[in-house]
């Protein structure tokens, strides 16, 4: 297995918002989901997950509520807010444009 790739600054926010866009998730599940979807390439450092969650919450893009987890524990579930949805759309467009540009350069140069 290759070494887990460090996440580019700022992309973690994008990934988190993307993961909770469809359903509310708690912190651990967000980390799991990112790891799973990236086929173990992206491992979220827990030390940066929670600060990122707090940052996003403070900016008003996500909101959180206490709920009951799949294993019947009290857990904090995060969901995307309306401004968060708009933000995600914008970030996603930015990302698509950026990654297309980078792969274009990588292929042709």
């Amino acid at each position, binding site marked *: 297995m290759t070494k887990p790739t460090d996440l580019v600054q700022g992309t973690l926010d994008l990934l988190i918002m993307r993961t909770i866009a469809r359903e509310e998730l708690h912190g651990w599940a967000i980390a799991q989901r990112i790891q799973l979807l990236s086929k173990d390439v992206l491992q979220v450092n827990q030390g940066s997950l*929670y600060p990122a969650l707090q940052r996003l919450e403070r*900016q008003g893009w996500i909101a959180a509520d206490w709920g009951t987890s799949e294993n019947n524990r009290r857990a904090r579930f995060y969901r995307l807010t309306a401004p968060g949805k708009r933000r995600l759309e914008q970030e996603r467009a930015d990302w698509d444009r950026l990654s297309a540009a980078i792969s274009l350069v990588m292929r042709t140069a």
Partner: protein
Amino acid sequence: MRIVHRIVPLLRALFRSARVDNELAEELRFHVERETEANVARGMSPENARRAARLKFGSVDDAQEASRDDRPGASARQIVRDMRFGARLLAKSPAFGIAAITIVALGVGAVTAIFSVVYGVMLRPLPYREPDRLVSIWTKGPALTLPRMYPTAADAGEWRRSNHVFEDIALARTSANLNLVGEGEPERLQGARLSPNLFSVLGVSAALGRTFAADEEQVGRDQVVLLSDGLWQRRFGGDRAIVGRRIQLNGLPYTVIGVMPPDFQYPSREFQVWVPLVIDPLELTRQETQNYLVVARLKATATLTRAQADLDAIAKRLEASYPLTNRDRGVAVEPMLESTVRDVRPALIALLAASSCLLLIACLNLSNLLGARAAARSGEFAVRLALGASRGRLVAQAIAEVMPLLAIGGLLGIAVATFGVRAFVALSPPGVPRLESVAVSVPVILVSLSILVMTGVVASVIPAMHAWRADFTTVTKDGGRSSTVGLRRADVRRVGVAAQIAFAVPLLVGASLLIRSSLKLAEVDLGFSPERVATFHLAVSRTKYPSDAQVAGFYERLLQSVTALPGVTHAGMVNRLPLAGNQTMSIKVETAPGAALEISAIDSRPVTPDYFASLGIALRSGRSFTERDDALGAPVTVVDDRLARSIWPRQDAVGKRVQRFDGVWCTVVGVVAHIHAHGVDVDPRPQVYWSYRQVTQDRMVLVVRGDGAPSALIAPVIQAIRALDPDQPVYDVRTMDIVVERSLVQRRLTAALITAFGAIALVLASVGVYGVVAYGVVQRMREFGIRLALGANSRDVTRLVVREGATMALVGSAVGLVGAAALGGAMSNLVFGVTSSDVASFAAGTVTLLSVAAIASYIPARRASAVDPALTLRSE
């Protein structure tokens, strides 16, 4: 909507910090548990699962810390937390806290107090319009022997007419005795006569009513008076209807035309009334001379240098036109503030230097104290640096921790300063000018606070900076002790202590110089005996006693009734007491028949016959005055033996002739002992006396000698005067001992303050030596244990430790002596009877400091030598 989304969590984070922390902790705990579960599901044992989960997660605290740092308001909360921690540190070691707070309070307090006084007296602008354009003008005496004489009206008039640099020139005469009667107790008021343009020159106007009109300097229109705010409040109850009322001054009706504002205190704060200055036409023709204070306002374009040049040219012209009166007469211009503060400047500068030394000592001491504390915590600092605390964070913490200490010390310091300033003003001798403007003012507080902040920053940042210069392993391994880093830091502290001693030496030497001066002053033979003498000032009204003969007659009757009082042995009068101001004249003495020598400045006093006996001034030859030495009798004089010896050596002065200031030749009928009339400390001039019936003055001082305590004479003497004339005010009643004391009070005050500074410096410096040596002993306990175990005896160990303290003290003293020499030079005006490089004083100051330093290092040395080797070696 957007804003609400942002603001709600921010408020939540600020106000519910603890709850946010708890929620976060719970969330993190959940994360670890969920991970553990997942690991178990993957087939790990529960124990391994938990460990793996923890490992993967990293430190819970780290995550929490990172989330917290990221939260809004984090730095403010951090500062508050650090300050709370600092306060807890203070509470934990109260001795340290008290020491540090005392140091800050004393340092800040002394400097603020002295700075307030210096600012109020020397630096604060005069309370007039554009005060930097105000200058005093003086006449310079012949051959520069008298740098400043009061100019004559004729000269001032010429300056006013011919100058090109002044907007205007105004005159003032300070000696106006005005007896106020008819409104309660008769009272003598201190008044000044002012030329009407003085108010426009100074740029002040009346608070109530008006100031003098230009034509009120003419005889007949001059019976108008301005009251000081103080007199108006005290005597007239602040009645606004006072303007236009008539009051009786010296038996004449004067119309009150105005009340001046409270800060108008020209020429000084003693003055209560002002009347117009009327200049005798004879003065303008140089047939009569009176002397005036001259103040002028420079034109906006003029400078002091140009003014001086302009007046020099006029003086040259006057010298040519009036050789009789203006030969060798120059002019000196100086800023008005300069004339006001000249006399007290040396003392204030010495005090300022002393308090600066004290502040430096306090700073060094504080940083040494904080340094020792930081050393004890160097391990903690190094660990936190290694764990990723930023340097900025450590510095910020160091500053925040020290803030409670500085705040308490600073507040106490300001309290000390306020108290100190009040005490200084209360204890000040009458000669200190502008005391009314001395207060702990805003600029002074700003300066003292910036000194305080600088002290704090220097004292707290430097110890914190040690932590990142230190090498992590050595610091944590042995807590800094016996490592090279520890030694270097100890060196810094030793240099700090040596520096404290270096700053303390000048203070102690200065104190020794002033104490020795005081002792020498006490030994001075005054030439008269002040014991058992009471003095009373009175000024008679010329309206009541128009002629000199009537004035003298009143004096004679007064002396008769006072002498008749029980307990009175002698009673005499003089126009001015010794040691209470001067009156100098220019006279001529006959050296041989037909040959005369001018003595340009001699102490001159009219006295009554029994004056010499009353003050205990010895009669050397001839006789004193009698009542027959009156206007009809031959003009006579009594001279002192200093004049007699220097002019007529090896001859009897009795029978020789002296030309009075008014040109009359008088015969010497007696020679008396020379006395210290000018000051206990200075004695520049010989003395000459006139008979009070031939030179009669309105203002006299009654000198009464009794056979018991002089204070018991006061009430009966005043009663006797009242019985003679119920309208006659008596003022400035003092025993002669107190008159002598008052003339020395400025010296005494300076000496007491500098000695107090010296004592504080001594305490601080010895605490510094003790602290560093004691700290070194604790650090080296094991070394001493080994030495003792290997056969050193306790004396060797004691010597080792004392040598450390002695080295610091010696090095510091050597450097300090250089500073002391400089301070001594600056104090040459303040010492008396010793030179400013007096060896005994330098030795006394240094030896005191060295012995105290030796004691301060001997105490910890005793502890070092009492070490039980077995115990210390095992404890490591």
